[in-house]
């Protein structure tokens, strides 16, 4: 027989149920990072296409998006803007293998929370993901207290 909790709370948007999308034209890079995050017990979804990331974002609240500056079907900044139109508070990490100063400045103007050069330092990304999740649970706790 299954164990079930019968008490119901209203913490709908708890970070545990939120998704992290990882979008990168380099599908292998996306898979690798998402796999790593899944292994760390985050709910991660890899994709090479911005349109697919948007589809996910439309049905699932996201906790974080990791976006490469170049996707298979659009630029990373376009996905950023479209994801922010869905959730104006969504934290975004921008990744790139293009190390130009202009690329970085463009990305930072968007209001990202981290700029990461490839190949990834996974631990760095994981730290950011953890930070976001703690922040959100603290926020959720604050709201219920308030």
């Amino acid at each position, binding site marked *: *027989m*299954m*164990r*079930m*909790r*019968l*008490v*119901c*709370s*209203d*913490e*709908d948007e708890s970070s545990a*149920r939120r998704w992290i999308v990882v979008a990168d034209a380099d599908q292998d890079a996306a898979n690798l990072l*998402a*796999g790593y995050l*899944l*292994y760390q017990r985050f709910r991660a*979804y*890899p994709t090479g296409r911005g349109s697919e990331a*948007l589809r*996910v*974002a*439309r*049905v*699932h609240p996201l906790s974080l998006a990791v976006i490469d500056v170049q996707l298979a079907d659009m630029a990373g900044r376009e996905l950023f*803007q*479209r994801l922010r*139109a*869905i959730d104006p508070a969504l*934290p975004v990490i921008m990744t790139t293998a293009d*190390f130009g*100063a202009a690329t*970085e*400045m463009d990305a*930072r*103007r968007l*209001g990202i*929370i*981290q*700029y*990461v*050069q*490839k*190949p*990834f*330092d996974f*631990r*760095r990304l994981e*730290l*950011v993901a*953890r*930070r*976001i999740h703690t*922040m959100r649970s603290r926020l959720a706790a604050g*709201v*219920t207290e*308030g």
Partner: protein
Amino acid sequence: MERARVLVADDDADIRELLSDALTQWGYDVIAVGSGREAVARITRELFDAALVDIWMPGVDGLQLLDEIKRHNAAIDVVMMTGDPMVSTAVQALKSGAYDYLVKPLNLDELRHLMRRVLEKRFLTREVSTLRTKLGEHLAEKELVGASPQMARVKELVARVAESDSPVLVEGESGTGKELVASAIHRRSARAKRPLVPVNCGAIPAELMESEFFGHVKGAFTGAVADALGLFRSANGGTLFLDEVAELPQALQAKLLRVLEAKEIRPVGTTKTLAVDVRIIAATNKDLEEAIKSGSFRQDLYYRLNVVRIALPPLRERKAEIPALVTHFLRQLNERFCRDVRGIAPDALAALQAYDFPGNVRELENIFERAYALGAHHEITLADLPDLASTGMPAAPATGESLPTLDQAERDLIAASLRRYGKDKEKAARALGLTVRTFYRRLKKFGLS
């Protein structure tokens, strides 16, 4: 009101019973079957809104069933249940079009929220965000609304500090418009043509702060595969907006202070310093003076940041602002959704004004947006604010009973899309993220063609 129909497919009789009981209690119509084959038979004969499917079933298994369901009617949202949290199966299910998955042992809270989200907001969120995405880019610069004496003072200060180049500290509870004020100052300042770089200090792990702020040179640490500018140099000539500045760890506070005094930074991994010209606007929803007393914020940094201080009062202290804000949001929403909701009923406005808004303007915006999306009338009524109307607290999303029907909202969105795209049904369908076939079906259903 029509109840949502949910198909449960699981070979475990205990689970079927449990799910039937729970879902029935939450107001859904439930059909529970014990095999994939029965489930397939059901979906070809009957209409369902959602399905809860066990991944491991003898015969037709969950993933096959998922394919069958999606082939039959892609609009049915399928939630997979899995006994082992095998990531690959779960991702495979999602890639094949499942809405989400639940790991057994099931957590009923989770299930309840998930079902609520699937069924109540399914249509709306999807279409609303499609439209929002489509039209969002054309939205005008966000405007600072408000004519109360407090807000008049804020606007005056904004205009005044925009002309100067001094640091600004914006204080106010969450959602009071601090970021809006920062961007208004930047846009009106001499730096307007240069970048405004926003950063949420609370979101950066302490270990990574230094390189985020000051950049690094290649090889400074693992992962530093090339030089990076960091926030300061990216904002050079412009404005750096430090949101949630109280979250800065002590070590970085000290470094930041030095940067503000010397106007130069030192990237991680080098001894060379570089000059930067950046205006700082900081924001906080915490009381920094308290933080100084408790020792978590440096007093000297506080003095550096707090040259001009703009305090945004919480919305509950300027409730007179609510009608103007509501009108503002209404105008934006009408524009965004090509609808013509004319106003808000007096009792609905009264309910808004009686509420405290711990989440301030952002919460008002959210509540109002939700009412707008669900309402689909000529005006927003009290019934569109179920949370406020019933308990005075908008904590939980409303339950099915108290809402206007999804049909109505759906009809409205479809009508709006038709109005916008005229004869081009394909475009109208696409704007809503629907297939042309589904679109035509809906047109017929609502008698809109």
